[in-house]
């Protein structure tokens, strides 16, 4: 059921994902098959009510000088839940690989749940790889600051969520960015 994507020599692929609750399972298998191949994946998950998503992303660096930059951000309200699993593999010989994986989850209600497993399998040493995960809720201090300017708590929270997701939305193609903005609209 996964989407198979093969990236060729010196090709730069950009993969945007906007999830607003429809699907329950999404998978991507990305292969950086030839030298110079690069993939940028930007995922935005907006979950409400009892929406559930299992997102699985696999990236394989199979050639030298390949780059992967995968960032997934989720904003979950009500009882929404996301399981984000990513596995980035760098095979022997894929020298000069640059692999980055990040998952950031913002929990907006008491019953929202997040699971993140960003994994790396590195079999080539002449590379750079890293990953990061954060899970948390909007900061009280940020909310206070914005409310002190007259914005209600709800509005401040929505602004914060927009801000959190902004750097993902800004990479989306216009139509998708509009859809995302609409989902988050005040």
């Amino acid at each position, binding site marked *: 059921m996964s989407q198979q994507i093969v990236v060729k020599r010196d090709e730069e692929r950009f993969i945007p994902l906007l999830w607003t609750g429809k699907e329950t399972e999404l998978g991507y298998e990305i292969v950086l098959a030839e030298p110079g191949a690069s993939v940028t994946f930007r995922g935005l998950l907006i979950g409400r009510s009892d929406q559930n998503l299992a997102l699985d992303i696999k990236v394989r660096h199979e050639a030298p000088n390949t780059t992967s930059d995968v960032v997934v951000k989720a904003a979950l309200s009500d009882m929404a839940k996301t399981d984000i699993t990513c596995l980035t593999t760098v095979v022997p010989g894929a020298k000069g690989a640059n692999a980055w994986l990040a998952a950031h989850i913002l929990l907006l209600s008491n019953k929202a749940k997040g699971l993140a497993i960003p994994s790396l399998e590195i079999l080539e040493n002449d590379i750079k790889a890293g990953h990061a995960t954060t899970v948390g809720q909007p900061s009280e201090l940020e909310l206070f600051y914005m409310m002190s300017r007259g914005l209600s708590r709800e*509005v401040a929270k929505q602004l914060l969520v927009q801000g959190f997701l902004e750097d993902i939305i800004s990479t989306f193609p216009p139509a998708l960015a509009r859809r995302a903005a609409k989902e988050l609209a005040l």
Partner: protein
Amino acid sequence: MKDMLEIKNLHVSTADGTKDILHGVSLVIKKGEKHAIMGPNGGGKSTLAQVLMGHPGYTVTKGSIILNGTDITDMPPDQRAKLGLFLGFQYPVEVAGVNFANFLRMCVNEQKAEGEKKVSPIAFRNQLAEQAKKLGFSDELAKRSLNQDFSGGEKKKAEILQLAMLKPQFAILDEPDSGLDVDALRYIANALNSLEHPMGLLLITHYQRILAYVKPDFVHVVKGGKIVASGGPELAEKVEQSGYENLA
């Protein structure tokens, strides 16, 4: 009652109840007056500023805050703002991804009464640019994310710019001068002096230097969670010379 901010016997502790910080602070600020608060670090002056705005980290255990006759002691920050209160933060909070100008425009529009026409983005941009120019700032800040990657001086200027656009009745500025060099300090001071709308000002100072440029009507010293001395501008000079030791 009207046109005044009354602080009545305020006792404040940290929200988790572990530490008592203010032990009965009373103060009245009338619209048009400039009050300066000085005091040693850790004496409670910043806490006072934050509590007036409703900071979630503190609890008022006794006393009250009355703004133009309305008790705001238990009100959330946004309601206080709508009633005309403003807090210039000592450490303006960075909020990633939220555009400065858009944010400020929203706040300005929130202040408008029901049925009143909201400011459009373009109109706002113009107003902002004009105001920035008047204060001697570039409006380049407006294009960036709220306080993100702003230098110390830029953050403080941005707070004043927000103040100028929101036009509060009472403004509390928490150490607008800390972390600034002399030039930036003069900038801020000039900006404050050139604000046109009538306002009550409570200025928490770190260095007394700013008081050379923004002349206060009243000066108070907060030490050990209480006001230990009050007077006119000459109190500032006295403190400058003999320090905080000999006051209560």
